[in-house]
């Protein structure tokens, strides 16, 4: 009896076989299904559990060094229990927790600055990078200047930024913009230069004009590098934002970390740091998701590679 039941299963599997093979992520609702499928796959793999173990090890290490062993280097440092209790305290000892509206204001102000700077850097860096990669003449004019300015770290720009711009908002956004702009421009340029010359030749062969080659080959061909650049760009935006906020400004996570340091509110300082980590991760994940959405071909190719 068991055997025949098994045979029945086999038949069902065989009947479904070809359709299962042909099923592929489609535009529209199929895409949602496939991401649900991927989620289920992820939960079934050991990866999420390894990740949880990693976090647990990190917290455990922090707890042991600070609160149990009280190692000398760590004596001034708040332990995880102090930070977490302060973080979720409706009535925080040092005045800031998940329950205080100020907390969200700091997050919002920082995020807004990063967003503005990132969008400006993208709007200028992508076209500039495309031009640099596309026109040798243009590159000869512009690139040496670019390469000379690039090694100057954002912190070195602080005084000039304060002299150039009024108030405290514009200088911070300018500083945040700088590093992002370099990352985006450079990666876009490399993206154009990485395009296999056969694609350009094929397009000309098929009768494309120069302008069409630019839109149909250069822009999509550089796209993977552009998105790598954008992910680096959001990351470095947070770097230089915090540098800027520590120097001037009345709000923002960098400002929060700096003032809680000077006012000896160490748990608040650590809350600021962890929050930066989380917000930074979310923004760069958002860029990655957008990239995958815009580059279906790449996502599918990589998915094929993973299966094989």
């Amino acid at each position, binding site marked *: 009896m068991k055997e025949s039941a098994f045979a029945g299963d086999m038949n069902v599997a065989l009947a479904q076989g070809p359709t299962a093979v*042909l099923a592929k992520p489609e535009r529209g609702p199929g895409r949602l299904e496939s991401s649900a499928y991927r989620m289920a796959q992820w939960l079934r793999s050991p990866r999420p559990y390894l990740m949880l173990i990693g976090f647990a090890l990190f917290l455990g290490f922090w707890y042991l060094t600070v609160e149990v062993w009280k190692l000398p280097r760590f004596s001034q440092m708040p332990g995880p229990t102090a930070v977490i209790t302060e973080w979720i305290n409706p009535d925080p000892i040092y005045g800031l927790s998940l329950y205080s509206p100020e907390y969200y204001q700091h997050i919002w102000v920082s995020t807004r600055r990063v967003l503005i700077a990132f969008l400006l850097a993208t709007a200028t860096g992508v076209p500039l990078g495309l031009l640099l990669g596309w026109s040798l003449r243009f590159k000869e004019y512009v690139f040496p200047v670019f390469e000379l300015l690039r090694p100057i770290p954002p912190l070195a720009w602080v005084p000039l930024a304060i002299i150039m711009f009024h108030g405290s908002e514009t200088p911070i956004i300018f500083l945040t913009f700088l590093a992002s702009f370099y990352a985006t421009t450079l990666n876009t340029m490399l993206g154009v230069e990485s395009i296999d010359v056969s694609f350009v030749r094929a397009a000309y*062969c098929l*009768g494309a004009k120069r302008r069409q080659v630019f839109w149909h080959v250069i822009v999509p061909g550089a796209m993977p590098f552009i998105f790598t650049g954008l992910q680096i760009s959001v990351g470095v935006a947070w770097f230089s934002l915090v540098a800027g906020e520590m120097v001037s400004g009345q709000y923002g996570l960098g400002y929060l970390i700096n003032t809680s340091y000077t006012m000896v509110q160490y748990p608040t300082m650590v809350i600021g740091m962890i929050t930066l980590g989380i917000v930074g991760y979310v923004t760069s994940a958002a860029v990655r998701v957008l990239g995958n959405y815009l580059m279906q071909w790449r996502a599918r*190719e990589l998915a094929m590679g993973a299966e094989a």
Partner: protein
Amino acid sequence: MNYEPPRGSPIADARAPALAAQGGCKGAIRIANVVKIYGSEGAGVRAVDDCTFHVPAGKITVVVGPSGCGKTTLLNAIAGFHSITSGTIHLDDALLCGPGRPKADPGPDRIVVFQNGALFPWKTIVENVAFGPIVQGRLSRKAAFEKARMMLAETGLHNLETNYPGEISSGMRRRVEIARALMNDPKVLLLDEPYRALDSLTKSVMHEALLETFDRNRVTIFFITHDLEEAIFLGHHVVIMTTRPCRPKKILTVDIPHPRDYSVLTAKRFREYLDETVEAVHEEALKAFAAGERER
């Protein structure tokens, strides 16, 4: 059988009248005294030297020769990817490149199928195939897509339209690329070792598909390969090149009627052609090897 007996050896003589009118076929290429030197004159690499031969319209001409002898250089000159140093190349009666015009304009009358494939990975199969007529403004988007679907169905690739090139096998990619070329009704297809990376089973399927396509379209085919069996199986004419600098050493007319199928591979005549080719190519390969030794 639509087999025409070969005439003398017309392809050796570039000054022979264009055979364009024959059988209504277009796309004869006349290569005359072409020289290509990379880098500066004198110090540069002489890749092609005083090369003269004729690619007859509506025929498959296969070029074989030692590695690095300058076959791709010649193909690129015909396609218009780079200039020639001297000589002339004509397509039918029009001058592609010659004195005063060192570089031909690339265009949809001569379409290249590349050694490593050049389907745009960011466009779906059907978008790739429809690309030519759309950018040329010859067809509306809708009409071009319709024609592309028909073209793909003809090649037996109809259920792959919405896939991206990265999702299909390399053999299928080559067929799609040829379909993309044929969408433009080219006079000439220029194929640069298109099947080099394929395994021998897929290769034989590709050969039969290519011959079938050729029988349907009667387009002139200029085909570069290292594989001598492939050369004789496909070609009406096989041009054996000398080692660098490249020029024809021997031009073989393969007197086996088209359409051919795989049974010819075992025919006695096929073996004889193969022996003849192997001998000529081997001689050049030895020379190339000796030259390489000397350079060291």
